[in-house]
């Protein structure tokens, strides 16, 4: 920034002065002639030259521009400016400061625990406010660290106060109260496989059991006298039966590519799932999209998008196909509930019919399934099958 000074030099011989200035190679601008003086703009660095060589003239600075003016103004108002800057800094600091952390919960121990956890994460009184993402991270860290104590946590910043709302996790410690239990049958079935870890086995392979029958007894007795009560454990697999029904439409809509493909570009933020397509799609009808990540920059992901035109067609299943598909669907749904040692033993279609373009199917399925569940009992009481006893299923 060039700084110029508006100067006034008193003289009656204005032309002589201009000649002298020309000889001194002083750049002058906006010359205005007054009665006994000459006003003009000179560059700030030429002022020294003027004062050195034009000793007989009185050089008076009227105004300054640029950096000189700025410096002068700053010097003149330095107290106000310093005060304003100081006030601004104080305001910024105070508006970003947390002076109090208010943990809202009735349990003093939990309040102390949360306060300490927050301090470990850097959230203490007289600390600076953080961004939303940082608070989310703090919440996630604390919840992970104290997952047995904390169910839910929220940080709410109100002015200079951080309100921490917390919900305590209540774990049902019923198992700790009663350490004696039986394994009972959850369903009726024929026993196929037995694994006993603790307790007295009450059934054997191919026995038929009803729901509620004791499979592994937790009361160890000798000569009709209970010697010891334990918590029975083990796994009893039995053949259980289900009658299931399913329905499936006989027609389905399928998409078929027309071999027409167009390129497009898409931007997606890493944190949000919103997708923004840069160009207008050149495929008007139905389309299928494939995305290929080109690069990531400043939290944005840039994708090359391939748009394939597709046409929808209706496909009608044959009765055999529909039946197979319905059976497969039932098997898949059932398989989701089974563990590694459980399996479908037998299946039989009981009834099938087509109505209103839908196939309806009734099936009988025999499954090898774990039927033992834990039933806790109070060892001081003799009636273990009382319905007042709390059931706990694994």
């Amino acid at each position, binding site marked *: 920034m060039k700084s110029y000074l508006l100067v006034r030099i008193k003289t009656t011989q204005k032309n002589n002065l*201009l000649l002298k200035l020309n000889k001194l190679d002083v750049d002058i601008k*906006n010359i205005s002639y007054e009665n006994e003086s000459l006003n003009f703009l000179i560059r700030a660095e030429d002022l020294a030259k003027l004062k050195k060589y034009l000793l007989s003239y009185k050089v008076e600075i009227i105004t300054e521009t640029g950096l000189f003016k700025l410096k002068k103004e700053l010097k003149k108002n330095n107290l106000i400016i310093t005060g304003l800057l100081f006030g601004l800094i104080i305001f910024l600091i105070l508006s970003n400061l947390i002076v109090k952390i208010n943990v809202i919960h009735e349990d003093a121990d939990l309040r102390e625990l949360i306060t300490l956890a927050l301090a470990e994460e850097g959230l203490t009184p007289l600390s600076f406010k953080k961004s939303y993402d940082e608070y989310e991270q703090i919440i996630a860290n604390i919840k992970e660290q104290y997952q047995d104590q904390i169910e839910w946590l929220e940080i709410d910043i109100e002015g200079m106060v951080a309100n921490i709302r917390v919900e305590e996790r209540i774990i049902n410690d019923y198992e700790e109260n009663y350490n004696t239990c039986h394994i009972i049958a959850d369903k009726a079935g024929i026993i196929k496989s037995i694994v006993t870890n603790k307790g007295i086995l009450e059934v054997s392979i191919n026995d038929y059991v009803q729901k509620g029958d004791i499979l592994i007894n937790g009361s160890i007795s000798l000569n009709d006298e209970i010697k010891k009560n334990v918590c029975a454990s083990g796994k009893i697999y039995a053949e259980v039966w289900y009658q299931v029904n399913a329905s499936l439409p006989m027609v389905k809509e399928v998409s078929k590519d027309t071999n027409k493909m167009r390129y497009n570009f898409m931007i997606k933020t890493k944190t949000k799932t919103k997708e923004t397509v840069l160009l207008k799609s050149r495929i008007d009808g139905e389309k299928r999209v494939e995305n290929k990540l080109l690069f990531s920059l400043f939290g944005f992901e840039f994708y090359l998008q391939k748009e394939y035109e597709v046409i929808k067609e209706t496909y009608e299943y044959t009765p055999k196909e529909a039946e197979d598909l319905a059976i497969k669907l039932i098997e898949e749904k059932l398989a989701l509930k089974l563990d590694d040692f459980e399996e479908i033993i037998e299946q039989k279609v009981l009834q099938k019919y087509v109505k209103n373009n839908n196939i309806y199917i009734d099936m009988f399925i025999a499954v090898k399934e774990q039927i033992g569940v834990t039933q806790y009992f109070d060892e001081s009481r003799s009636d273990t099958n009382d319905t007042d006893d709390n059931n706990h299923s694994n």
Partner: protein
Amino acid sequence: MRIKQNLQNFLFDQEYYIDIFANNIHIYHYLDLLNISDTCIKLKLEKFTLEIEGDNLCISSMDKREILIKGLINNVRFIR
């Protein structure tokens, strides 16, 4: 050739030029200011002396190479 000269002139600022307007005259690349008065200003250029005659002539801006003269210009003379 003229294009080359113009380009050289533009790049190296070797040649003078004089712009005459209604009430002012702008001279670029003058060497010296010889004389100033209300009616006549003399400037030395590389190959000649430029004499500007008029009424109420005054210098508006001036630096090492350029000068802007204001006033009613009656005559511009090249003295070789």
